[in-house]
């Protein structure tokens, strides 16, 4: 492949580009979907191509193609430079990149059990076992279970001299039981909602989930939710389970620290950010116990890599230190504007997408509580589990999340189950009211395979390491009963 990357880089140099890089990406995926005892989807995908990114006349251009052949590489290199020159027709500040050491080498994530080598029948059986156990509960009308595997092989080469090969294998799985009654639909999931949990790991990660062992439990809970009362409207202490807290971090911390958003380049689509550069090293994002890092080096993290998609090594970057906002997710271009080096967060969803600043693993450091201690220490509150839905404004301030289930906390004990729980708040007020975080034993690095950003939209796989945490004075129970409906 090196002859092909050299050809691309030579061509863009010859056409006058001041910078150029090429990524050749090959991706293999496999997914299995089981629903109500039937294999509804058994899918294999292969995808291959290359993308060339250049700076010419001080502007960016990018072009990609599925045909990894010398003539096409030459055509696409020419098109990328032409596009950059078209960009430069509009008045602009010339792009400057923060320096980076050139790198060379081959890197691969270790997996214990290659998921693509496990027989299909074995994987289907594991899902069908869980499916059968969920459907033993009569109220369960839809039982879904799924597995997803992906291997991405990337070659990155730049006009600055880097040549990096990386291979990453990912595995994920989950089960979901949906109970249906007259006018009511409720669901429970394991180990997390929206297709489960994911990691840069092999089939051993799926085996450790014990899908079958949790199937009956979640099915019973979904059935119980049909008869549970509506979550009350109140202002209470809220304790969040890990996978819900992972999404809270994703939406209210991960996105607003993307420095391209901060500088306005997502303004027309995803939005901007309240964490403007004047707040860096000064703004109180959370309480003293809140410490958040962006860690692309975390073992097994879905957002981990060896080098990002502009050749910057993976790093662990402080984002919130003792409650104070201290860092961003950055690229070479945006870091330069702050006079910093890139933190290595440029990631592309395949060969046909330009890298954007994306989350790596945005992790909340563990505290020194346990979940049980937090509950015992709470006089009146709500314990909420697993993501139901999410919504947040375009500067990432006002959020509202729904969870699958919640339980009353009265005098230190869990009580009444509630359906349709919701909670809402303003990001920095919410994190400012965080007064307890569980410890390392309950800390888990969750994988989210569905982070959307950019135009054309790019779906990124990211990670969030968290332990359950407690927040004071949270508004809960936002959903009201529509007229004439008993919810």
């Amino acid at each position, binding site marked *: 492949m090196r002859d092909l990357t050299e050809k691309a880089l030579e061509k863009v140099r010859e056409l006058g580009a001041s910078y150029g890089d090429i990524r050749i990406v090959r991706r293999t995926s496999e997914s299995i979907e089981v629903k109500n005892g039937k294999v509804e989807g058994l899918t294999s995908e292969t995808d291959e191509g290359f993308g060339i990114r250049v700076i010419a006349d001080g502007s960016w251009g990018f072009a990609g193609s599925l045909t990894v052949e010398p003539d096409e590489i030459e055509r696409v290199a020419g098109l990328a430079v032409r596009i950059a020159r078209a960009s430069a027709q509009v008045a602009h500040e010339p792009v400057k990149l923060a320096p980076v050491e050139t790198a060379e080498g081959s890197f691969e994530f270790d997996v214990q059990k290659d998921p693509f080598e496990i027989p299909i029948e074995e994987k289907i059986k594991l899902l069908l076992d869980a499916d059968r156990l969920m459907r033993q509960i009569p109220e369960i009308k839809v039982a879904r279970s799924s597995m997803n595997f992906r291997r991405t092989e990337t070659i990155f080469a730049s006009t600055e001299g880097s040549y990096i090969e990386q291979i990453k294998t990912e595995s994920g799985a989950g089960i979901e039981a949906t109970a249906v009654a007259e006018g009511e639909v409720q669901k429970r999931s394991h180990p997390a909602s929206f297709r489960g949990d994911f990691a840069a790991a092999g089939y051993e990660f799926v085996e450790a989930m014990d899908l079958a062992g949790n199937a009956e439990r979640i099915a019973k809970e979904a059935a119980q939710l049909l008869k549970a009362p509506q979550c009350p409207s109140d202002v209470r202490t809220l304790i969040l389970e890990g996978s819900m807290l992972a999404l809270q971090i994703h939406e209210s911390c991960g996105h607003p620290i993307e420095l391209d958003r901060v500088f306005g380049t997502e303004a027309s689509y995803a939005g901007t950010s309240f964490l403007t550069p004047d707040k860096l090293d000064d703004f109180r994002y959370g309480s003293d116990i809140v410490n958040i890092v962006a860690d692309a080096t975390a073992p097994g993290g879905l957002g981990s890599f060896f080098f990002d998609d502009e050749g910057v090594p993976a790093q662990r970057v402080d984002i919130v230190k003792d409650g104070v906002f201290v860092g961003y997710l950055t690229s070479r271009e945006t870091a330069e504007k702050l006079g910093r080096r890139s933190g290595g967060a440029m990631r592309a969803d395949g060969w046909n997408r330009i890298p954007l600043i994306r989350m790596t693993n945005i992790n909340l450091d563990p505290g020194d509580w346990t979940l049980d201690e937090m509950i015992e220490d709470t006089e009146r509150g709500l314990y909420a589990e697993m993501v139901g839905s999410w919504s947040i404004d*375009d500067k990432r301030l006002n959020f509202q999340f729904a969870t699958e289930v919640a339980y009353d906390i009265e005098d230190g004990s869990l009580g009444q189950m509630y359906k349709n729980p919701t909670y809402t708040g303003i990001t920095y007020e919410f994190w400012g009211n965080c007064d307890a975080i569980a410890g390392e034993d309950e800390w888990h690095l969750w994988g989210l395979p569905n982070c959307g950003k950019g135009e054309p939209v790019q779906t990124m796989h990211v990670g969030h390491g968290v332990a359950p945490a407690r927040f004071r004075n949270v508004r809960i129970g936002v959903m009201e009963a529509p007229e004439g409906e008993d919810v």
Partner: protein
Amino acid sequence: MLGRNRALAMLHRAIECSAADMTQATLDIGESNLTRFANSMIHQNVSERNAQIAVKAAIGKRIGYATTNRLDDQSVEAVVSKAVEFARHSQENPDFVSLPAPKPVPTIDTYDERTAAYSPEDRAGAVAGMIAEARRVGASAAGSLSNGYQESAVVNSLGVEAYNALTMADLTTVMSGDGGHGYADRISQRIGDFDPIEAAVEAATRSVRSRSPEPIEPGEYDVVLLPYAVVELVEFLAYLGLGALAVQEGRSFMCGKFGQRITGEKITIWDDGLDPRGLPRPSDPEGVPKQRVDLIVNGVANAVVYDSYTAYKEGKESTGHAIGGAGAYGPMPVNVFMRPGGSSVEEMIASTKKGILVTRFHYTNVIHPVLTVITGMTRDGTFLIENGKITKPLRNLRFTDSILERLSNVELISRETKRQAWAVVPAIKARAFRFTGVTEF
């Protein structure tokens, strides 16, 4: 361009090398180009050429599905083999009856040479004009302008054979300045159908009017929703319950309600994939011709859309609403129309004593699918209406409300409709919209 003959020949070769009882092969191939701008500069400018061959193989009632973007003979044979191998190793799906049988597919004109050939320089020129409009009012311009073409073909072993080439042009812009934001978008299969400058003027004017927004207490307000906001409600209805799989699984708001009133009688919603006022295409990814389906008629739940899997399960015919892929998510209406009324946005404002005008929603998501309760934020132009006039811009609000309940309280519907990606909708005025929170801008 690959062209009809080469595309179909490639798929026929795939079908011929399949050892399955039934095989379907689809091809999507095309180019897409997008110029993005922000802070009144082009910051991202991309082009791609890509393709996908997808093969669905059925051995008895066992199904396998495989895709590749490699088009050489060896890769096509390999993807067919993979689909067949997966089918062999799969379990029987008793609900699977058959791939669709062939039906005549109409020929409609969805390809425009100028749109396909629109160059990076053309896009940069259009963006420069839009940025000039922003500067004229002291605003900063952001947005994207895209164009491209796609050829789609499908062949199955029962004789289905369909091919279509279409072009697409899409423009979105947000203009910002002094705390004010204004939005506009345009979409068409022909780039000549819209004027980027006219869209820029719309967004720039709105951004000026929304400067220095003031807070307001959340609560119930009458609302005037521009089509950019209405489309969000209609799309969520389509997603939540207007496909047959959602009904078969019991999670649709249509369940048990067919023939009953579910919205106010002013509301009629249908899907018509052949109507040129939308973004037509002659057939779905299974090669089934698009049928018009009247979904909600004068407020009464009437019908949902089908693909072959959900239709044959009920002994019905597909309405041409498969959405592609392995089919796990079921059929969806993607060419939705909402019947216009006899009003105008100006008349809606004039008839409102106290209310809020919403330009668009942001980050909307579902809280309760059967009750159609969703939540989201307002964005890019939210205004207070007092005594029949817009009196001031407002900071953005969060809403949490039931779509069906709000569509049961619609007072006025505009004559004019607007074409958007999935739907063609009017503006509406509705009573007692529930705003449940505020933000700081």
